């Protein structure tokens, strides 16, 4: 029961309450750039969700097996050169950023090839924003959040397992999709509006993004309420 509640809360938190785009302000680039049409926004949300899930899976696996202090693979490899206590202390967390970027870039490349092969119109409409997922901070952010819950956790029982990491990644992507689709819907309506000349283009888009973010701030605190209601402690 407790685990299911945890998963549920992580999902709701990632998707709505602490929405990546509208609460943490990561992933703004595609949020502004590809939110002109709802179909495009949906496609972008799908691509980001897919990449973020793969990246979460890979980054959790690599962090747990290789990068964190005392990770099994590292301990085994270091055991050839060092005494057991020293081998257990070998710490590769300095590599986290470069490894995450590496993983993200490869998954984006993979997605790009896949989309180009099977959805050419979507590929065309993405344009430069598809390779730009590589530098989409939402994805790196998800990886780093997962790392924060795996590495250096005081109580080992509280460290996240793969299920929680995947939940965060996937629902973070869902939250991104929700945000970008809402934005695209507003922007489609906006094209019919008489926007004053100085606000046209990026300015009005950023203002809408800000108002949207303020609206999402209304979810703040819902997670602790939910936790209390569900009896998760």
């Amino acid at each position, binding site marked *: 029961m407790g685990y299911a509640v945890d998963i549920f809360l992580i999902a709701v938190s990632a998707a709505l309450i602490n929405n990546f785009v509208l609460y943490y302000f990561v992933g703004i680039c595609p949020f502004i750039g590809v939110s002109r049409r709802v179909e495009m926004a949906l496609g972008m949300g799908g691509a980001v969700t897919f990449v973020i899930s793969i990246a979460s899976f890979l980054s959790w696996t690599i962090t747990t097996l290789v990068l964190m202090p005392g990770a099994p693979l590292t301990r085994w490899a*270091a055991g050839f050169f060092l005494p057991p206590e020293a081998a257990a202390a070998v710490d590769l967390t300095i590599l986290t950023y470069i490894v995450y970027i590496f993983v993200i870039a490869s998954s984006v490349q993979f997605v790009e090839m896949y989309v180009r092969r099977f959805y050419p119109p979507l590929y065309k409409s993405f344009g430069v924003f598809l390779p730009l997922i590589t530098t989409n901070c939402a994805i790196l952010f998800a990886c780093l959040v997962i790392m924060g819950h795996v590495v250096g956790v005081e109580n080992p029982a509280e460290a996240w397992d793969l299920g929680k990491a995947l939940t965060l990644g996937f629902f973070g992507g869902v939250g991104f999709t929700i945000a970008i689709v809402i934005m695209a819907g507003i922007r489609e309506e906006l094209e019919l509006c008489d926007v004053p000349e100085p606000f046209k283009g990026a300015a009005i888009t950023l203002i809408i993004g800000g108002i949207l973010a303020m609206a999402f701030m209304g979810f703040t605190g819902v997670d602790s309420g939910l936790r209390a209601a569900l009896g998760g402690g």
Partner: protein
Amino acid sequence: MVSSAWVTIGLSAGVLLAMAMVLGYVLGWADRKFRVEVDPRVVKVIDVLPGANCGGCGYVGCGEYAEAVVLEHEAVNKCVVGGQRCALDVALIMGVEVGETLPYRPIVHCGAHYEDRLGRHEYRGEPRCSAANLVTGVQACTYGCLGFGDCQQACRFDAIHVVDGLATVDYQSCVGCGACAKACPRNIITITPFKSEQVLAVACSNKDKGRDVMAVCRVGCIGCGACARISSLFRLEDNLSTIDYDAYTPECSLEVMEACKKCPRKRLVFVGIPTPEDRRKARDLEAPDVVEPDFKTTVDDTEWRG
């Protein structure tokens, strides 16, 4: 036994190397699996296109047009920048015959400089035609060129300039992309097929009755119809002489020349690249010896009023 630091360094390198190999293998497999065959002709066509990405052909950029040519059998002579030679190159790649390509060039249908315009008032607003066009009283003629140079700013080829209040096309630099015609809020610039280096044009857009035109402009077409009576090339539409460019031929008949002479306002003028005779004539005219560079052109003249 080696030190712990060296083990960390070695393992870091090992981890990245292992990841590179694994991910490289996966991506290599994916590349082969998901390979998309691009028609090699598309690449070739992109190579011969000028790469200006001006949108003059009606497509977003040169790449889009190249795809349309190869895959959808779009006409090969749509590129206005490359002109006939580019069309020939593309036709060679596609193995098709190229039809006659006429260069399309803009014609500014207004001929009034500042001194010809009546009823001009001081305008202190945003110095753009699109803004000035919204208010009345900037100048009495509601059809003619406003002279704030929206077209000049839209031009990416430095081929249209406001000279003494009138947008003037530099046909030597012009490629005919049509950006100026889209920018003009009064729609006085038309993109016209040039059957020769110079074509005849009506340098006025005023559709009002003769007396009203006289009240606002010293040179505007008054719709007298003299040209239309002499030659069938001209037609009077809404008090404005118009030229039927489908019937227009580069060798103007005597009738047409007669009509040009008869025009009381001298609104039937030839526009285009100057002929050698014109240059010879211009040489005799007085011209300033030194041309001062105008550094203002590189400054963003947007005026922000907070």
